[in-house]
């Protein structure tokens, strides 16, 4: 069991060795919270269906030194469209500039190790925005990430830069030697009138267990436009808590798609704080679960200002002994009149042993709002299946056709064609292997 003493030792070593910066204090706060709360257990309402603490029986360790990987190791991992992308690589939770390729001009895109940004000309930005997610995510696992912020990443898309090249972030966990704990941390600032397309994906090397505990914080300013894609298709030995906290501080547009295919236990927290009048946000999710996979999507849309629009559609399939969880929380603050907030969660269960838990939570403190939510849990359409089989399409292939069709409207929300086709192929393969 990875125990508190292990983390305490590691934390003290880090605080002693890392240079003093605005991050030092943040880590201390994080560790105090972690010490107090421990890892979340099923007793916490927000963690009712997802057991993270038992995972830590697996004795995860931080990797001692950054593992030796070279550019060739990355070839298997790269996403379609990478030739034109800015490719950023984390290994075992640490941003590795040497493995990363930045194709955009420095005037268009600033990418720095977080520690460097915290000391240099971006100091004020880091101080102001790093750690804001703790206001919403108060549990011990989030605090554990904050306790160990090191070799994080800072991305800035400066004012007016409509970035054409997308940003791909590859998270690699090297579990070839030991059970590995990775804790990537990033801060992303998209300034006024700027545009960013960001995709994250996760890969575990080796057969030991990996646990990725990621926190990504993003600040989106006036008239900025963000597309954010998260593609989870790792091994069954790979578990993760991935927290994405997006703060729309100016009237802006954010479009997110989270696709979860393979994995062990996955918990995604996606927070959208709509903190300027007229914000627009779209949240899409797709989880296609098999085996013992467990995927828990928690979304939070906090409407703080008037006239914001948000729409959520999460769709899932649960086969075998898998478990899917969707919890969608919408808060409409007293000031957020004329909020439009919609949410829908649809599920198909393919096996008696699969489970779906779905829970909408609406907390509305303003009176002039339009909010709706709905959830469904159903089965594959037997009539459609028979129709396809009656034309000679074998049962397994017919099921894949129907499941692909079910996933199609979420897939279509991945706007870049190369990436969409890549994910379509992953989905096809994932569904075809039984």
């Amino acid at each position, binding site marked *: 069991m990875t125990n508190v003493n292990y983390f305490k030792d590691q934390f003290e070593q880090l605080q002693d060795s890392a240079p003093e910066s605005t991050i030092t204090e943040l880590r201390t706060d994080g560790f105090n919270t972690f010490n107090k709360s421990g890892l979340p257990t099923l007793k916490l309402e927000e963690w009712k269906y997802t057991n993270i603490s038992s995972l830590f029986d697996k004795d995860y360790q931080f990797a001692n030194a950054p593992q030796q990987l070279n550019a060739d190791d990355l070839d298997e991992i790269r996403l379609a469209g990478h030739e034109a992308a800015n490719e950023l690589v984390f290994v075992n939770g640490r941003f590795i500039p040497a493995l990363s390729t930045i194709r955009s001009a420095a005037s268009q895109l600033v990418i720095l190790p977080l520690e460097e940004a915290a000391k240099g000309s971006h100091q004020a930005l880091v101080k102001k925005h790093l750690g804001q997610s703790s206001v919403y995510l108060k549990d011990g696992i989030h605090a554990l990430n904050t306790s160990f912020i090191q070799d994080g990443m800072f991305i800035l898309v400066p004012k007016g830069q409509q970035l054409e090249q997308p940003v791909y972030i590859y998270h690699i966990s090297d579990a070839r030697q030991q059970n590995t704990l990775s804790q990537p941390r990033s801060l992303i600032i998209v300034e006024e009138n700027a545009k960013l397309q960001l995709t994250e994906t996760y890969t575990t090397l080796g057969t030991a267990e990996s646990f990725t505990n990621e926190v990504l914080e993003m600040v989106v300013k006036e008239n900025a436009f963000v597309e954010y894609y998260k593609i989870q298709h790792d091994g069954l030995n790979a578990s993760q808590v991935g927290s994405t906290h997006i703060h729309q501080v100016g009237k802006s547009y954010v479009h997110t798609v989270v696709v979860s295919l393979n994995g062990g236990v996955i918990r995604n927290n996606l927070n959208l704080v709509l903190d300027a009048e007229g914000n627009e946000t779209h949240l899409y999710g797709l989880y296609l679960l098999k085996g013992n996979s467990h995927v828990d999507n928690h979304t939070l849309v906090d409407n703080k200002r008037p006239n914001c629009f948000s729409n959520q559609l999460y769709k899932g399939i649960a086969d075998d002994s898998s478990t899917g969880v969707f919890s969608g929380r919408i808060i409409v603050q007293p000031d957020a009149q004329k909020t439009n907030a919609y949410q829908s969660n649809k599920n198909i269960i393919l096996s008696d042993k699969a489970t779906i838990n779905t829970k909408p939570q609406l907390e509305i403190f303003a009176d002039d709002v339009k909010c709706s939510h709905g959830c469904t849990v159903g089965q594959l359409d037997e009539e459609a299946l*028979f129709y*396809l*089989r*009656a*034309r000679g*399409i074998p049962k397994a292939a017919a099921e894949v*056709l129907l499941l*692909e*069709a079910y996933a199609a*409207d979420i897939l279509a929300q991945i706007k870049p064609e190369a990436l969409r086709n890549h994910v379509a192929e992953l989905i096809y393969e994932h569904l075809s292997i039984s």
Partner: protein
Amino acid sequence: MLSIKNIHANIEGKEILKGINLDIKAGEVHAIMGPNGSGKSTLASVLAGREEYEVTEGEVTFLEKDLLELSTEDRAREGLFLAFQYPVEIPGVSTTNFIKAAVNEKRKYQGEEPLDAVAFLKMMKQKMALVEIDQSLLSRSINEGFSGGEKKRNEVFQMAMLEPKLAILDETDSGLDIDALRIVANGINKLRNENRAILLITHYQRLLDYIQPDFVHVLYNGKIVKSGTKELALELEERGYDFITDEADLAASL
């Protein structure tokens, strides 16, 4: 080609087919008529392999094989085709991709190479002309938002593409306007040949004016109570089912 012997079938414990016997030879066209609820679609479903129906007695031989032992998809790949009375809408699956998959699954089953894109398109064009179906329908999701008549035309188009040995057409004429009926019936006639058998389920003489059957059967209360030639259909048109069903009811009560 098809030999049905004393088939009994249940759904949800209720017996719907109560001992059906029917022999169909290559090249023949048989029509099955009968009142609503008599079991015509049930017979078609049992032949196509719908799993909800439980066959409690009897046997079916199709091209020397035990049909009831085969899965739905294998029956199709052996050459059995069912045009559905109520074709299913399948959003998100393109009609063209689906038909291509069906054609190639069948070819694979028969040990043939899959059709390449060019050959497939050529075949599509040719068969589209046969039933005068519009390309725009085929690029949509399967039957999604199709009108009743368009769905039926799509069924016959699929029959043309799959070139079955035995086609069972369940009320393919209902829902078609006068022109469409003529076009679809002509299409079916063009698909008629000495190697292919057709089983038409219909309520209307109108269809049989276009597609002249070799035999006509009346299905009533789960049994074939009368068989004859095409003149039987004319007689039914004139007199209704009563003269046959009364006789059958009387026989059953004895």
